[in-house]
């Protein structure tokens, strides 16, 4: 009896090992055999730029309502940020990444990463100098002079570009290192903080403070953000996958920006489903406010009303390149953007642009 039990276990161990080997083999062939199913485009991995909050309302809805599946994707995998999204995508750990024009352009110019932006969620970047009305009260770039501003190391060059774009000398502002924590601002240790108007600003306002925003986009530094970037190889070898992703994205974001019901749906998915493990927990009211604000000011503009979501106009591209130059990044439109697949998609399915 004992021996047969042992024998049984041996078989089971062997079975588990075999299964593991098969799984490994399956993982190994994952990237090369993306198109196993007949009309599918394989599994999907998306690298986010931030934690799984309402910033990705459109992605959550696209997954929840099955838009990715409709477009032909198998398993959908969202990776939370913040990380070096460009590196994750360029090294093949994710199919698509959401990042901003400055970060992606820096990766292309400084380390020859083979990446392109193929469309964008945010027409305007949400970077802002957040201050309290009764402390820093920074309403214009000139108000920055003599103030103590908390800047995260990754955003240091961006902040310096904002100063340069407004003709302010770096020595006229006191830069102090700060994380993404809003406590030093609320405790009035600093006058201003580099923040997202859709995130930290709403968070601080929600805590009962009277806040002031100085958006980078309206003060000499416009560029696109939450932009979809992918590798040159993906564009060349798998254009259908890129188009399928953009289609599902546009549908998801249309729903996410479809009035109060849409804002609430995206925020709830963030709080209850996709971001439920985040600590400290997401606050529903703030997430709804974020979903609303990003749709009204960043996702939907006069240009998207005319051309459709995710499009980037020629004028917008010019503005991006100018901002990048101010940040010390010299790049051409062709090196950074490839909007041909988005154009193709919108021609094939004009209803997406409505």
């Amino acid at each position: 009896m004992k021996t047969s039990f042992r024998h049984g276990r041996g078989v089971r161990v062997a079975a588990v090992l075999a299964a593991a080997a098969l799984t490994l083999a399956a993982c190994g062939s994952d990237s090369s055999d993306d198109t196993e199913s007949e009309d599918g485009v394989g599994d999907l991995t998306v690298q986010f730029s931030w934690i799984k909050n309402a910033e990705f309302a459109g992605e959550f809805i696209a997954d929840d309502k099955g838009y990715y599946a409709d477009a032909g994707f198998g398993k959908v995998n969202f990776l939370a940020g913040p990380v070096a999204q460009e590196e994750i995508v360029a090294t093949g750990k994710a199919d698509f990444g959401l990042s901003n024009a400055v970060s992606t352009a820096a990766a292309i110019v400084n380390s020859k990463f083979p990446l392109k932006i193929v469309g964008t969620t945010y027409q305007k970047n949400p970077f802002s100098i957040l201050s309290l009305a009764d402390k820093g009260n920074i309403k214009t770039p000139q108000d920055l002079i003599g103030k103590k501003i908390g800047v995260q190391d990754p955003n240091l060059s961006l902040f310096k570009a904002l100063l340069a774009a407004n003709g302010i000398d770096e020595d006229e502002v006191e830069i102090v290192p700060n994380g993404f924590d809003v406590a030093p601002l609320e405790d009035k240790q600093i006058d201003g903080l580099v923040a997202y108007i859709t995130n930290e600003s709403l968070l601080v306002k929600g805590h009962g403070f009277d806040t002031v925003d100085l958006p980078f986009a309206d003060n000499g530094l416009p560029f696109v953000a939450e932009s979809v970037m992918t590798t040159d190889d993906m564009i060349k070898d798998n254009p259908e996958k890129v188009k399928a992703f953009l289609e599902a994205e546009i549908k998801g974001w249309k729903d996410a920006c479809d009035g109060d019901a849409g804002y609430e749906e995206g925020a709830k998915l963030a709080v209850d489903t996709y971001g439920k493990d985040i600590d400290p927990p997401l606050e529903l009211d703030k997430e709804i406010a974020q979903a609303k604000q990003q749709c009204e000011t960043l996702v939907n503009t006069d240009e998207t009303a005319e051309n459709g979501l995710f499009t980037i106009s020629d004028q917008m591209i010019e503005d991006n390149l100018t901002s990048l130059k101010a940040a010390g990044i010299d790049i051409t439109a062709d090196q950074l953007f490839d909007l041909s697949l988005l154009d193709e998609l919108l021609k094939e399915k004009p209803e997406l642009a409505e």
Partner: protein
Amino acid sequence: MIRLSTFRPLMNLVFVLAATVGAWYALVSWTGVSELTTRLPQDVVAYLFTADEAGENRSAVLGALAQTCLDAGIGFVAGLTAATLLATVMVLFGGIEAATMPVVMILRTVPLVALAPVITLLFGNGFWCVAVMSGIVVLFPALVTISFGLRSVTPQMHDVVSVYGGSTWDVLRRVAFPTALPSIFAAIRISVPGAITGALIAEYFTTTDSVGKAVNTSLALYQYDQLWSLIVVVTLVSVLGYSLAQLAENVVLARYGKDAGRA
């Protein structure tokens, strides 16, 4: 008299550099990390010397390095001075040692990264923050090593000085410090990399252009050439500093006879 063995640090240095470069190639080729993010020795040489913007690159990297050397120098001097003074006081007054040594040993085990936010709160994020953080890294190991050296005076030596009418201070000056020289040099040697580590950590919390800061900002902008160059130059400085300390140790100890430092 200076003997050939005095120059062993130089041979050590050559060996260490060769081994480091070898390990660099091996790690990059065996770990299979994407070549988008890794750089090899020749890439760093190209970035610093042969590229079109080599001049600009050099000034960016060396400017940061100069600041880090200054920061590390401050911590090195502050930490070693404090360690020597504390160790001396401890030897002179046994009670102090019994009271402070356990605390020192415990403080030594607290990681600096964990202490850093407290230090920035207390000292702001300027000069004093760097001095204190880099000093702390140097202080504890140096204190333990130096006080061990000072205490290794034999009772017989102590008695000889006392018999000739010498005071405790004379024992310290004529016997304890010379006896402790090997320990003091050991403390100096381990303090070189310690001071640099402390400076790099402190620089994350301050605003000046330095290696600690530049590593972070170049990472954010995918400037991997600059990143690897920074790591290379700061490692070189650390190894060179260590070798210099070793060279100085050999030269000085040679004066105290061939067995000095080996007893």
